[in-house]
């Protein structure tokens, strides 16, 4: 078995026993990247030289006995997370030359843990999208089928993990951007509770929805990264002062006493029959493992897409006002005057989906429309949040599909934004309610594309999700399948 194909916990065991060195592991991953990256396009910026320096330092920590579970582990970081001294572009021309002068809090934590950063992964521009088809950096291809999308917006992170171009990755999730690409690429992904992980240094999209989380080869690795990145940070006033448990202690066998709710609004016609069958088989499997299954209702589900596409663009239009060509990033050359510089820089620096969302968001926030759109959507958001509160009175975990279909083809949806937005229907609600959501592989379509099952739980119940996911993958083994050798 090649070193790059290991999980984080397997590699850590081998490093600890000195069967391999951190430098060998990083070199193996870099060689793998050299071999497959021209087909996948998972990365925007590589960081191989610095990665080898970190790997040397990690070797020393294994000798010193100060190594932890992430020491010497090669990771990919979504290009929306600021990395000091390493270009961070959000896959956008407007940040094409931006080198952050500081680290995001998650990066500070990962560096302290001794992780090796191999590169910055591709994404939908500014995380706006579900397919990782940014104009500026080009699409990331699905390692299971190169004509298909990798999902989005953290498609580069999910594809890099699936193609063994890193051992694990960080993504960010505003409406499904960790869970959906994880599902489409056959890997595990966790969007934590809002406030669990600091957003300091995460380039803002929809600030009331954004959350950083891990994408990995199995559930144990999700728990390991969560242990490292979680926790209160005074630099993010929305992070929650609450103790961080050892998430790996949740990984115990048996689901007796766990109540699984199936929201009937998430099992509807229009879902691809193979997706439906795979998720239902997954539910049967959970039942066999001792869980009790019951039907529940989330009655406001049909309004989720409409609420999201008011709130997220509104917050985005405000957050993206900062890109003006003055202090950093791209500036269009030779403008006639200051106002012309703003216009030219923004119009030529942003891609079409970002421009569409800025216009939408500016419109719904503009004079005379605020009550009709933003306030209305925020009120319906309350109803959606209350649906979950009711459901979690009778069950511990909700199980649903992640996406209504397996990955679609590259270019298939780019002309019809509303159709693309509707494909997010099952993942948006967790962000609206601030609850944690997870995706685990639960089967394959007849065309060989991975299918994911979504698990959602109440605020700060990540341990319950990890326990259920761990039991599921241990029993089914879908996560062990790999795409055909590239």
């Amino acid at each position, binding site marked *: 078995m090649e070193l790059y194909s290991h999980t984080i916990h397997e590699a850590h065991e081998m490093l600890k026993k000195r069967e391999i060195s951190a430098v060998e592991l990083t070199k193996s991953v870099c060689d793998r990247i050299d071999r497959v990256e021209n087909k996948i396009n998972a990365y925007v910026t590589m960081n191989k030289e610095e990665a080898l320096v970190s790997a040397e330092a990690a070797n020393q920590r294994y000798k010193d006995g100060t190594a932890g579970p992430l020491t010497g582990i090669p990771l990919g970081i979504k290009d929306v997370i600021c990395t000091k001294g390493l270009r961070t572009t959000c896959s956008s021309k407007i940040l094409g030359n931006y*080198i952050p002068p500081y680290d995001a809090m998650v990066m500070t934590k990962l560096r302290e843990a001794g992780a090796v950063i191999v590169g910055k992964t591709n994404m939908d521009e500014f995380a706006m999208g579900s397919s990782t088809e940014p104009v500026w950096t080009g699409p990331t291809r699905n390692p299971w089928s190169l004509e298909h999308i990798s999902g989005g917006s953290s498609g580069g992170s999910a594809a890099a993990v699936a193609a063994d171009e890193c051992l694990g990755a960080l993504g960010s999730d505003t409406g499904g951007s960790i869970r959906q690409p994880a599902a489409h690429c056959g890997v595990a992904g966790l969007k934590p509770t809002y406030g669990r992980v600091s957003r300091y240094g995460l380039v803002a999209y929809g600030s009331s929805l954004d959350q950083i989380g891990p994408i990995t080869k199995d559930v144990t690795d999700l728990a390991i990264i969560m242990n490292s990145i979680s926790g209160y940070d005074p630099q993010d006033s*929305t992070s929650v002062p609450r103790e961080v448990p050892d998430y790996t202690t949740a990984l115990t066998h048996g689901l007796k006493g766990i109540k699984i709710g199936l929201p009937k609004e998430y099992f509807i016609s229009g879902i691809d029959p193979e997706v439906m069958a795979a998720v239902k088989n997954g539910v049967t499997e959970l039942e066999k493992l001792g869980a009790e299954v019951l039907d529940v209702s989330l009655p406001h589900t*049909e309004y989720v897409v409409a609420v999201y596409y008011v709130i997220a663009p509104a917050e985005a239009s405000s957050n993206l006002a900062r890109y003006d060509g003055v202090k950093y990033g791209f500036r269009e050359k030779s403008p006639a005057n200051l106002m012309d510089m703003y216009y030219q820089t923004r119009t030529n620096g942003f891609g079409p989906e970002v421009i569409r969302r800025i*216009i939408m968001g500016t*419109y719904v926030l503009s004079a005379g429309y605020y009550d009709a759109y933003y306030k209305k959507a925020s009120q319906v958001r309350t109803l959606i949040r209350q649906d979950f509160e009711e459901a979690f009175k009778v069950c511990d975990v909700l199980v649903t599909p992640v996406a209504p279909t397996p990955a679609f083809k590259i270019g298939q949806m780019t002309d019809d934004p509303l159709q693309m937005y509707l494909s997010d229907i099952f993942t948006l609600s967790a962000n609206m309610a601030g609850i944690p959501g997870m995706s685990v592989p639960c089967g394959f379509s007849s065309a060989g594309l991975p299918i994911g099952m979504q698990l959602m739980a109440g605020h700060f119940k990540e341990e319950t999700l990890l326990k259920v996911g761990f039991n599921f993958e241990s029993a089914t083994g879908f996560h062990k399948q790999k795409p055909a050798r590239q």
Partner: protein
Amino acid sequence: MKISRAEVEHVAKLARLSLTEDQYAVFTPQINNILEYIEKLNELDTANVPPTSHAIPLSNAFREDEVKPSIGLDLTLANAPEKEGSTFVVPRVI
């Protein structure tokens, strides 16, 4: 039509974007489709529903007002498209 070509142009201007005719031709119907879909929210009576701006109940996040080190002038200016001495340079305003 929920939003006219002229309104899209007005909003684009508010957001400091200057689109081409081709872009208006594409974006105006797309944004209309989305806004028509959003109309769905009016099916619900929300007169007595408080808005949610934040999903996790947190009241004011206070901290001590302490002076801490900053990143300094060089790093602050390092990404500037144009700079001079200790300042960012922009086209002439007045």
